[in-house]
């Protein structure tokens, strides 16, 4: 019996021998992701998996590199007041900035046509159209105008909506090939979902001319995989890897099995859950597998929004008690083995504005007794029968929501629930799928009390869209804006407004610290931790750098090299 089993499995192994891991080479590289992607129109795409892959095929004027610095890509250089590329101007009685962006002559679309100013103007026009749903609309529309001299179509003048110091960062917007997409937009732009349905990125994603990055798309199977091949018209060095396949493996539980069986060669930053990465890291070390599990602190800020309309949470003592009763050090140590950092406020550790100075901000060290004291003061008294707190016969019970299916978040959520239970706060968990949670619940402040999710920001970013009173989503503004706590503080409003147009770097830091002080004093949000990006590149892969921000590691994919 045993012999026949062995023979049987031997037979099977021979019959299906395709699974032995082939040696890695530059001929083909298979990346595993666990998140869904959509079509590749850079304006319409909203999913992180799509932007991860878009960096393989499309580039903008500037980008944030792995060191957290803004560097030019399609632009010759970044204009500034100092180098004369940008200057103040008054347009229609409004003080603003005008900057000159010069596109490098080598920048070409994948059909050999040059990238021109008109491409940026088209992107801006489409983003502004009310019929098209554009993910990052604000960034595009903060550029008010794109002009150029017909004689030099690659030298563009950008006029911004106001004199913002970070104007050059807005050049992260992507151009669209105007020689292809102008006609599409003209024909379908007025219909509902007309442009989305008919954009060439959806209809013929493999056509030449849609991309200007190191790669172009050879094949797209939605829900399955995308194949990339080098774009011969890429402005930079030709990519070393001749074929990249990004494969979607939606069940993270089987990601590792797929990696070890050679179905994929690497797990991207959109793959493993944190627990899996920790476990796999140990296995890589104990079995000396040819992989490296990389952790990179990122700008992703995990936090809990407190619903400021909740009558219980209106009391600042309750809000402070909520923070005091959390042992975040233990959380990070226990659940993340110290590979992610405790958050103190909205700015991440790799942000130049970051501060942990107790003189500058208010720091809440874990203290259950302090939390109990605050709750007692607020009138919430412990009931010895069920060990929950009551006030006027009402139980201290708070609803806690987050995205369903995110393993790490759900574990953290349960951990926090236990922590709060210890001080007599009942926490009721209700989770929803991400699209519902972000599409409806957080925006309309339908979460009873607490909502846990993350913000991804760039370094030195202005928190106006999340802190300003005008950014509170309401019926009046059609539920736009991202102040989902409903936090309204006049001083903060003024500070974020002044931060926008402050050209002195030192003063900007000061303002940012002032905002952080009020933020930590007032506790509209419970900071939890800053996430780390995780990826599992093979040891043989050279020039692979995790970035820790929204411009994924694929932004440098042309440098990746698998030769020994």
């Amino acid at each position, binding site marked *: 019996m045993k012999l026949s089993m062995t023979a049987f499995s031997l037979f099977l192994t021979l019959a299906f021998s395709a699974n032995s891991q082939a040696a890695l080479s530059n001929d083909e590289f298979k990346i595993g992701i666990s998140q869904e992607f959509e079509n590749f129109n850079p304006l319409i795409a909203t999913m992180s998996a799509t932007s991860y892959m878009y960096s393989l095929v499309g580039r903008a004027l500037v980008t944030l590199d792995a060191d957290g610095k803004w560097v030019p890509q399609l632009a010759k250089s970044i204009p500034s007041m100092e180098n004369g590329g940008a200057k103040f101007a008054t347009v229609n009685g409004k003080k603003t900035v005008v900057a000159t962006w010069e596109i490098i002559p080598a920048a070409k679309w994948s059909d050999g046509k040059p990238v021109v100013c008109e491409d940026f103007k088209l992107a801006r026009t489409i983003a502004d159209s*009310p019929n098209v749903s*554009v993910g990052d609309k604000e960034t595009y529309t903060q550029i008010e105008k794109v002009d150029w001299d017909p004689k030099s179509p690659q030298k563009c003048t950008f006029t911004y909506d106001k004199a913002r110091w970070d104007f050059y960062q807005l050049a992260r917007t992507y151009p669209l090939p105007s020689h292809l997409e102008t006609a599409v937009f003209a024909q379908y732009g007025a219909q509902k979902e007309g442009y989305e349905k008919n954009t060439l990125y959806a209809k013929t994603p493999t056509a030449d001319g849609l991309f200007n990055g190191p790669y172009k798309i050879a094949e797209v199977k939605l829900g*399955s995989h995308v194949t990339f091949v080098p774009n011969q018209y890429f402005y930079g060095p030709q990519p070393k890897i001749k074929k990249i*396949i990004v494969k979607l493996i939606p*069940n993270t539980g*089987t990601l590792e099995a797929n990696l070890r*069986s050679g179905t994929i060669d690497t797990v991207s930053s959109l793959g493993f859950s944190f627990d899996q990465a920790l476990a796999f890291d140990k296995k890589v070390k104990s079995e000396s597998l040819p992989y490296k599990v990389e952790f990179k602190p990122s700008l992703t800020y995990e936090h809990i929004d407190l619903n400021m309309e909740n009558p219980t949470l209106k009391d600042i003592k309750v809000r402070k008690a909520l923070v005091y009763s959390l042992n975040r050090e233990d959380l990070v140590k226990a659940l993340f083995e110290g590979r992610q950092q405790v958050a103190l406020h909205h700015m991440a550790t790799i942000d130049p504005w970051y501060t942990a100075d107790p003189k500058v901000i208010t720091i809440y060290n874990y203290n259950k007794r302090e939390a109990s004291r605050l709750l007692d003061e607020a009138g919430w008294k412990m009931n010895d029968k069920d060990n929950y707190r009551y006030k006027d016969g009402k139980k201290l019970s708070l609803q806690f929501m987050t995205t369903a299916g995110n393993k790490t978040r759900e574990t953290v959520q349960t951990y926090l629930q236990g922590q709060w239970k210890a001080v007599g706060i009942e926490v009721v968990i209700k989770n929803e799928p991400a699209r519902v949670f972000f*599409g409806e619940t957080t925006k309309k402040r339908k979460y009873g009390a607490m909502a846990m999710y993350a913000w991804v920001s760039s370094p030195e970013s202005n928190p106006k869209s999340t802190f300003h009173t005008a950014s509170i989503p309401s019926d009046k*503004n059609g539920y736009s804006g991202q102040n989902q706590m409903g936090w309204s503080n006049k001083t903060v409003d003024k500070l974020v407004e002044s931060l926008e147009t402050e050209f002195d770097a030192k003063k900007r830091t000061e303002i940012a610290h002032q905002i952080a002080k009020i933020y930590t004093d007032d506790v509209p949000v419970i900071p939890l931790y800053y996430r780390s990006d995780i990826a599992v590149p093979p040891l043989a892969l050279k020039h692979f750098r995790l970035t820790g921000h929204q411009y994924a590691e694929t932004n440098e994919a042309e440098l990746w090299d698998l030769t020994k």
Partner: protein
Amino acid sequence: MTTYIIRRLIQTVVVIVLLSYVCFSLMTLMPGDPVELMIQSNPKITSEDVARLRTLYGLDQPSYVRYFNWVKTIAAGDLGYSRTYRIPVSELMGPKLLNTFYLSLASLLLSILISVPLGIYSALHPGSKADNAVNFFAFAGISVPSFWLAIMLILTFSVYYKIFPAGGTFTIGIDENQSWDYFWDRSKYLVLPTVSLSYQSIGRFLRFTRSAMLEAMRNDYIRTAKAKGLSYTRVIWGHGFRNALIPLITILALSFSSLFSGAVITETVFAYQGVGKLVYDSIIGNDFNVAMVSFIISVAMVLLFNLIADILYGVVDPRISYK
């Protein structure tokens, strides 16, 4: 016979329409709509814009009007547009339907091939050791959680033994012309999902075949046939099995229903690109058009197979006549 089929067809269509309306109404109870997704991405939107967009999408109308409009566009051949993938639904569905069909068919064939002979064998030897073993095998089949089985299969055959791929539909980059290599490749990816999907139906079919056959063999005509001196094989196949076949066909046809819905879990675990996973993703992601279309397709398939089962009834059972 023809009138019967026509009547049943009309009934089926009515049921589909009713169900699609129910489902449509259920979907409107789900949170979020396309305009809200647009608002989310646009901080400068005004309430007038929102009102205009709602009119543009017809969201300001009551659900029955919206249902009627939706039916009109479907009837015109426009299946709509997927909000998640941002491509027309028709492009999305085709290959996925085919993939699910392969999986269901393979699983159904495997179930029948294993369960019918085993069931008959154990019915002919009731109480024997073999019968007990077959019974246990069958009960295990209906009792094992299918996703758990799937995960165990992956652990054993992909991680530990590395015989089959852990997930996927086919090797990416393989030549998709219907060559032998392609067929071989697809089969390799189908093995584990098929096994995990079919084990449950094997359990059910086995139980069913066994009891149907036991029932049939208990009838008087079997005794008569034996008494007439007919050969053992003739008695079993010509008389016993023929009669056991009738209930068997019903359960087979009905099982298409569970093959389509059961595939949700199997397809998710194995990352298999089928309709089941699409249905799940579209419902969870509130991808309205995809959810409705795939839902209707699976309901229609099920109802259609019920009809086929009823017609086959008449073919195998001369006692039934359709008027």
